């Protein structure tokens, strides 16, 4: 969008709304320009590296393949990306920067979109870091620790990993947006789906529901090296609807209507 206005000097200057790429770059910057933001990213990479190293010393040597190391190393990423998603949204309230953010960009949904895109970039970088670390681990394992060393890797594995990590970071954003509080969103994120998983194991009729609605269960097939069945996709879609789209929709309504102080 474009408009013209009179500047104070009396000359006409052109005003355009900030482009989405510009907002995305800003939101990405905000996720990494504080100690807390950097610490979270460093923690993810350190845990990935630790899991790769552990795999070199445990299990059967001939089972140590690139794909195997990679998918296991993704575990800490899956756990911490939701936290990153939560914080990317809730820090606006905990640090009270929402006042400036939404004054600079009054169309609030654009900020949210930029946050989603920025977080997606970080999720992709995390998967890339995981690939690189797993590659080093596989090479070292094959050279010095009698590892299988197979480099077999399919686009299906990569696609599944990327999709799963994107969903994990978005579930964090959805919870953060709905609750607007870091501790509340993080605790509820970890408690509800896990309570669901545990209950599903105890109560038989809940188990069949859990197979459809527990995100931990439904994203599982994404990280296994076989093609998802139609029913697996349907289950994934149902859980994404419940844990991502529903809180995202409610959170967006809250964001658009609320008073920002």
């Amino acid at each position: 969008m474009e408009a013209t206005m009179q500047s104070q000097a009396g000359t006409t200057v052109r005003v355009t709304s900030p482009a989405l790429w510009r907002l995305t770059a800003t939101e990405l910057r905000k996720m990494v320009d504080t100690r807390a933001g950097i610490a979270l990213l460093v923690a993810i990479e350190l845990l990935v590296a630790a899991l790769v190293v552990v795999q070199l010393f445990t299990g059967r040597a001939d089972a140590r393949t690139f794909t195997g190391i990679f998918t296991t190393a993704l575990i800490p990423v899956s756990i911490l990306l939701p936290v990153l998603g939560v914080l990317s949204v809730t820090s606006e309230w905990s640090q009270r920067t929402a006042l400036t953010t939404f004054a600079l960009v009054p169309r609030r949904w654009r900020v949210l979109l930029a946050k989603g895109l920025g977080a997606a970039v970080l999720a992709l970088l995390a998967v890339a870091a995981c690939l690189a670390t797993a590659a080093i681990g596989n090479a070292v394992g094959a050279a010095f620790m009698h590892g299988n060393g197979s480099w077999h890797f399919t686009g299906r594995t990569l696609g599944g990993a990327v999709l799963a990590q994107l969903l994990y970071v978005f579930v964090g954003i959805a919870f953060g947006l709905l609750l607007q509080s870091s501790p509340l969103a993080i605790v509820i994120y970890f408690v509800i789906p896990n309570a669901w998983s545990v209950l599903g194991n105890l109560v038989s009729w809940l188990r069949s529901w859990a197979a459809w609605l527990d995100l931990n269960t439904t994203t599982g097939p994404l990280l296994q090296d076989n093609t998802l069945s139609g029913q697996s996709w349907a289950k994934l879609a149902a859980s994404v609807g419940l844990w991502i789209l529903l809180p995202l929709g409610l959170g967006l309504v809250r964001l658009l209507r609320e008073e920002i102080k």
Partner: protein
Amino acid sequence: MINVNRLSKRYGSHVAVDGVSFDCPPGTVTGFLGPNGAGKSTTMRMTVGLTPPSSGSATVHGVPYRRLLNPARQVGLLLDASAQHAGRTGRETLTITAQTIGVGRQRVDEMLALVSLSGAAANRRVGNYSLGMRQRLGLANALLGGPDVLILDEPANGLDPDGIFWMRALLRDFADRGGTVLLSSHLLHEVEAVADRLVIINGGRIAAQGDKAELLKSAGVRVRATDGDALRRALASAGIETKATSDGALIAHAPAEAVGHTAAAQGLVLLELHPAGGVEELFMSLTTANHTKEVA
């Protein structure tokens, strides 16, 4: 140019802002005065679309703020200096705004220099800033986009006398070059020296607005005698309305000469007789008059 048109905000049964209207023309500084909790901040947040009004509307340059494409290029805002990320440096705080609104990094350095936060201070975390430094950083943030309208909520809070003097000069210059300034305060003396116009709000309603000199004149005179009760009776019998202040003086709605004559006729000893200029007296006189004053 800012136009506020019958803005109201209700929270449940509590009316925080009740039908507030005023205009801020270009080339002027408008002081928005009222005690804490009078509705100043809520009115300002409604003006810039952060708080949805219960009714009424506001525009900047004739456009509702939320419809401005890149508002920071036209309107500089400082609503709460303490609402800044404690973990970012001063420079990083400005860089994020600069990146959002599309102004160069060079502008960040210029603004840091303008508010005397360049050098080492720029690279310290905002969490380690004093309130005065946060106010100056907030002002730099507001000026970053080169706006011609400034909306500042209690910008003098935490500034030392030098800082207040500096800010007055900056705002005066901004308005003299054709800019529009709206700044709030709960202390009259903070805005008295720089404001051309005053909008006074109390209990969510406009108590008075208009030209500063006219308003201060209409505030009446402050008078204090050795025998306060006798003075009050004397003035009452002379038909002069008064109201007692918290420190034993009276605010009288009459010229100083009339008050002085009345006291002299009764042989009362006066300790004080001068124009009531303080914000407290202003509120007193306005509530005494018991109706909304409009001074052109």
